[in-house]
């Protein structure tokens, strides 16, 4: 019983971690090139979820919903980058933060105008409504799909970064941007491509999360703070750090939320243990971050410079 609970929670943690990775990948890639962090990245996630849910309920096709979520986030992302964010690359971090905060407020309110404030619930696709039995433990097959998609994206990004020309330029740009641009590479274009890729992955994350979580305005804000934490813990700019950081944070958060109240109930009475346990669990990943930074301020897997 306890082992099966742990196993299920570990899978939940893995699934959450994979979602975090889909969001962290794009942010950290753009940071490597442009030294810029787009706090409005969560808006692409929200957009993907809304577009996916809308297209899925209209057409009934999950594949079509996926195409809509990914291309929608891609198009909006590239448009925002080209028209607005490009003006802030040379500016101080302070103004970058401010500009992207303005974008978040705008996107959240636009979603509220278009789709209302109350949450929308999306069903999992027909083929993935059941559960899969694994060593006698039942686990929803849709969550397996999320894990599979996330791991496939991770493998794809690994190949892209380590075995293609674009990946080579990305790595070179993160090491010495000026040198790469002097060699005749259009850095702006490369950055736009990476930004678009990141937005598309965020849209994909939104679609995959839609059947599990509630689709509502501001859904991107809470998760983006966790994603920032993932990036800081993993080492800013490092895609490997984003991957392992996301999995660690996903597992620590999920398992802590389940086991801390249980653990505390051995020490004190039931009610106060529940209250203290849930309060402590919500702080757990932040305390984890504090410990990591106290030991390694540059993160667990910093970029080689």
């Amino acid at each position, binding site marked *: 019983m306890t082992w099966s609970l742990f196993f299920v929670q570990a899978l939940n943690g893995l699934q959450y971690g994979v979602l975090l990775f889909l969001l962290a990948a794009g942010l950290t890639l753009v*940071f490597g090139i442009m*030294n810029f*962090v787009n706090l409005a990245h969560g808006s692409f996630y929200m957009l993907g979820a809304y577009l996916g849910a809308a297209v899925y309920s209209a057409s009934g096709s999950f594949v079509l919903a996926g195409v809509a979520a990914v291309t929608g986030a891609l198009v909006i992302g590239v448009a925002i980058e080209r028209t*607005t964010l490009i*003006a*802030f690359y040379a500016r101080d*971090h*302070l*103004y*970058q*933060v*401010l*500009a992207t*905060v*303005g*974008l*978040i*407020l*705008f*996107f*959240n*309110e*636009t979603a*509220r*105008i278009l789709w209302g404030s109350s949450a929308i619930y999306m069903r999992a696709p027909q083929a993935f409504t059941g559960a899969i039995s694994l060593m006698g433990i039942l686990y929803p097959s849709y969550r397996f799909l999320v894990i599979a998609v996330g791991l496939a994206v991770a493998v794809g990004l690994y190949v892209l970064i380590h075995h293609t020309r674009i990946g080579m330029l990305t790595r070179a740009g993160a090491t010495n941007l000026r040198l790469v641009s002097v060699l005749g590479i259009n850095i702006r274009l490369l950055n736009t491509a990476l930004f678009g890729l990141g937005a598309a992955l965020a849209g994909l994350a939104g679609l995959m999360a839609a059947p599990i979580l509630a689709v509502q305005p501001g859904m991107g*804000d*809470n998760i983006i*703070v966790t994603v*920032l*934490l993932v*990036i*800081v813990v993993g080492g*800013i700019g490092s895609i490997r750090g984003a991957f392992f950081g996301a999995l660690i944070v996903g597992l620590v958060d999920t398992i802590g939320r389940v086991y801390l109240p249980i653990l505390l109930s051995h020490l004190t009475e039931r009610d106060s243990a529940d*209250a203290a346990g*849930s*309060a402590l669990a*919500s*702080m757990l990943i*932040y*305390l984890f*971050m*504090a410990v990591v*930074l*106290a030991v390694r*301020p540059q993160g667990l897997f910093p970029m080689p410079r």
Partner: protein
Amino acid sequence: MLLFPESISPRSPRFIAVAALLVVLAIVPPIAANAGGPFYVTLALRILVFALAAASLNLLLGYAGLVSFGHALYLGIGAYVVAILSFHGVTNGWLHLGVALALSAIIAFLTGLVCLRTSGIAFIMITLAFAQMFFFLATSLKYYGGDDGLAVARRSDFEPLFSIQSNTGLYYVTVVVLVATLYLSWRLVHSRLGRVLRGASSNVRRMEALGFPVLRYRLAAYVMAGCVCGFAGLLLGNLARFASPAYMAWTVSGDLIVMIILGGVATIVGPLIGAIVYVILETIIAAYTQHWMVVLGPIILLVALFAKRGIYGSFLAWERRIDFAR
């Protein structure tokens, strides 16, 4: 000891503008009582409380170059101290103040130890993460209202010395606290501490090579800014008679940054000017449409794009220009 850290002629535009501003602040309650009642006093109080919070953040963000994106945390701390203590029947204002300042100092010290080890964008993210941590902590305190927040049964008791039970009383106390804070921060930025912070903001390595323990100076500033903002939180809790996790939301931290940039980064009076303009703007837009954020978002974007000096900063630059022309 000189009263002013800089020499300012009483005929300079700066002196006249600030004196006029102080006069306006002093006469708001009687004028509001004639013009349309308590709404305007409440609005002015909101402005002053946010100006105090923004001024404390400006010490970090403007002078020390430390872009904290989680400063609203201390607003929440101050408000929750008032609400929780009065929930348990403790209404002594001096006790509220002592606990709010001590708690703000402890939290700022502990989080500062971690945050200040990083710099640049990582610092922004970590300060945001810590504020979010306390936000979630507040929402999980079911005993104290959780998500819904906690009402303040009775405002902090400072009798017999003075009373903040009426809005007018609270207003004048807030004005005194704000003016004292602005004066002290003016002295601070011209003190040794202020000069080290400004030096480290432009070149950390040089300051360290000169033998200054930069981390220690920054931590001192971080704790001071946290305490002042905790004070602002105490005033906010008394003003709203309420403490809510929403006071610690990242959007509030963002609001404070907007006020500073609007008014003028690294100027003493700038945060006050920024708070006046921003809160009034917000109130006006909110009166026209329920979806005011759809208008405010792009305005913030434009502020970030164009407001390089801010309102008061541009005023100072204009003053310098006419000074040269003479």
